[in-house]
């Protein structure tokens, strides 16, 4: 219980720190949200009117104070670029990115775990081949994979129409099948990572004394694998999986642009490139919260897998 309180307080501080940092970064990097929105051909009267309306002429501390006091009340302000409440913009997209992230994680686990175990079990040419393949997979950037997948599955095989995402609410089947290819582009490099970790971890456990003991007690190979080796091998892999979640989220940010999927990533890229501070703050806060919470969840999961771990 004590642990939970401590953890919650630290999460709040982390988020506060992130929000201040974002504000400061935007103060330092060059740019002007009004010009970024209206372009270089805008009438000067329009530029001035908008600057006044947005209150951009106020000092930094005042702007932050007014923003944070609204934020704790749940009002994240209005996006400069889109002229809409930040909450509305995020709400519409967060679900989609969360779905993409969840689907990617599932695919990573469903494909990565068995593949990792398989490679660890077959230390021969077959295993080596798969290892090599995973090495290649790690080296491929998601956005490039996205272009390749689009041209193979979209243009040649015509399994989906490039750039034409159908919202899941409109047509669940078309929506999911489009997302499947998005997920594929994100998952493949991450599958490669998980496979490597699992393989190394399993091989390390395999050589341990307790395995020999288990074997001498007459345990079958499968029994030993799933009840002894895997249980111990999984621990470092879970840590990596936690970190991969952030990775998957980041991958989604990039791949969304390639596939023209209206997720949070495209919104974030847009927000940063147009200096839309309220929107960036909102998104960053949400993403930071998700990553922090997932790490928290991973810590809790440790305990379930290894009861010896004491969370204090």
């Amino acid at each position: 219980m004590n642990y939970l309180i401590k953890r919650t307080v630290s999460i709040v501080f982390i988020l506060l720190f992130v929000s201040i940092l974002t504000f400061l970064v935007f103060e330092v990097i060059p740019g002007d949200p009004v010009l970024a929105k209206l372009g270089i051909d805008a009438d000067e009267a329009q530029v001035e009117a908008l600057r006044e309306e947005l209150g951009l002429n106020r000092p930094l501390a005042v702007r932050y104070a007014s923003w944070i006091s609204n934020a704790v009340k749940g009002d994240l302000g209005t996006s400069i670029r889109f002229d809409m409440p930040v909450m509305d913009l995020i709400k519409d997209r967060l679900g989609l990115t969360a779905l993409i992230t969840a689907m990617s994680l599932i695919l990573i686990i469903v494909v990565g775990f068995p593949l990792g175990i398989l490679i660890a079990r077959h230390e021969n040419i077959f295993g080596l081949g798969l290892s090599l393949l995973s090495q290649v997979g790690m080296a491929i950037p998601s956005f490039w994979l996205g272009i390749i997948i689009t041209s193979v599955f979209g243009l040649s095989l015509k399994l989906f129409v490039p750039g034409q995402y159908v919202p899941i609410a409109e047509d669940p089947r078309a929506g999911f099948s489009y997302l499947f290819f998005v997920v594929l582009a994100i998952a493949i490099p991450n599958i490669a990572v998980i496979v490597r970790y699992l393989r190394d971890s399993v091989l390390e456990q395999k050589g341990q004394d307790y395995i020999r003991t288990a074997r001498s007690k007459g345990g079958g190979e499968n029994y030993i694998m799933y009840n002894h080796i895997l249980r111990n091998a999984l621990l470092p892999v879970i840590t990596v999986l936690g970190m991969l979640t952030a990775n998957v989220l980041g991958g989604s940010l990039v791949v969304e642009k390639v596939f023209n999927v209206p997720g949070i990533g495209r919104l974030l890229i847009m927000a940063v490139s147009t200096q839309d501070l309220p929107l960036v703050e909102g998104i960053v806060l949400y993403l930071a919260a998700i990553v922090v919470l997932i790490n928290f969840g991973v810590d809790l999961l440790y305990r379930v897998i290894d009861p010896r771990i004491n969370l204090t």
Partner: protein
Amino acid sequence: MKKVFTILLLLGVMLAVAGCTDSESSQNESKFVVAVPQDPDFLDPHKAAASGTEEMMFNVFEGLLKANHEGKMVPAVASSYDVNGLEYTFKLRKDIKFHNGNNVTIEDVEYSYKRLRGDFSEKPLSSGFEGVEITVIDSETIKFVLPEINASFLGYLTEAVIPASLTDEDHNKNPVGTGPYSFVEYVPSQKVVITRFDEYWQKDVASIKDVEFRIFADNQTALMSLQSGAIDLYPRINAESIDSIPEDCTYIEGPQNMIQIMAMNNKVEPFNSIKVRQAINYAVDVDAIIAAVANGRGLKLGSNMSPAMKVYYQEGLEDTYNLNLEKARQLLKEAGYEEGFTTSITVPSVYQFHVDTAQVIASQLAEVGITAEIKKIDWNAWLQEVYTNRNYEMTVIALTGKLDPHAVLNRYSSDYGRNFFNYANDQYDELMKQAVITTDQEQRALIYKEAQQILADEVPCVYIMDPNLIAAMKKNVKGYQLYPIYIQDIAVLTLTAE
């Protein structure tokens, strides 16, 4: 081995599920899809300033006047008008309706232009109506009285007429206008949808019914979408992508009234010397740039005006500084830079076209001993450092076209707030002031031509080209018209059965 099969099977099933849907993806076939690169800045036409917004909303809004494809102002919400010195009198068109079905009244017209003047907000929304008296004469006549002569005033009357009954919030959420298409919905970073307005004052103009402007953040994605057949019209496709335009598509190209320049900071050494600027102009081979960067698809310029502006364009300036390394070296010597010098070209990294141009220029300048380092910076940094703070040496950028020659040329006036060239010339300033108060169109054109001549003589910039606009479209799309402004006129398009 069994597990391998299980995995493969699983993947196979997922693929199969995904593959089954291709037959259904044609559900929005009836919509005419146009690829655009960016979101609108505001839907409210009086607040919108970005050319990317105008590109779409040109179809939705009209002012008293409207630009046609030649760049001429023609009556739209007005049926006729009369200019008498400082007085501009407009007759409202009879039986003209808003998209919400209401008739356009003279009060709506009054409201729209008073709103632009800033009557209902802290600051004006347009600088064109400052000090202008707006008076309703009767139910179909409105009069504008200017405080002083302003030859550019008619251009401001293309600003949209919108219903007085709507609130500011409505104007930005569900905008209503009088154009051939009415606004349906805007989904941020996805699409803007418009539909044909059947009670448009001009009968039987628009033929295509539903139009979706689909927003693509990435050129490559848009191109692949065109190849897959999901897009009907892709304006502004890159010149190097022309070979990737699929079989069932075609393209139209022409000048787009854009001016690509390499600006020099006229207040910074050595560019404060006219000889240095001329030397650079002689050293830069514009023809080579057009060939290398635009695949030859661009019109060579000699001053700050595109030939697309037929009436005002001064011909024959484009060959003033044809490549002449001897002359360039001679001028550098006269200016005291016989050994050349080291400088930089700052260029916004988002525009590959400008980055490529800068690279070609840098290699050309090396021939006369000028070492130009290319500094790629992000667009926001460019806006701040170059455009606002004028903290740069040379930069490559393009200025989008305007219908009003004043907006194009006044950028070089010494008192103009965004004169990032830091160019100052009393004679030029005088010409600009004179042009504003000259109402005789021929006389006015002559003044602007003279101004172009000054720019060609003193070369505050290297004037490069008007890159061709290349619009790719399906072969069944007919009637596409190039405009000298950044818009897509959907009403003139028709689809043939094929």
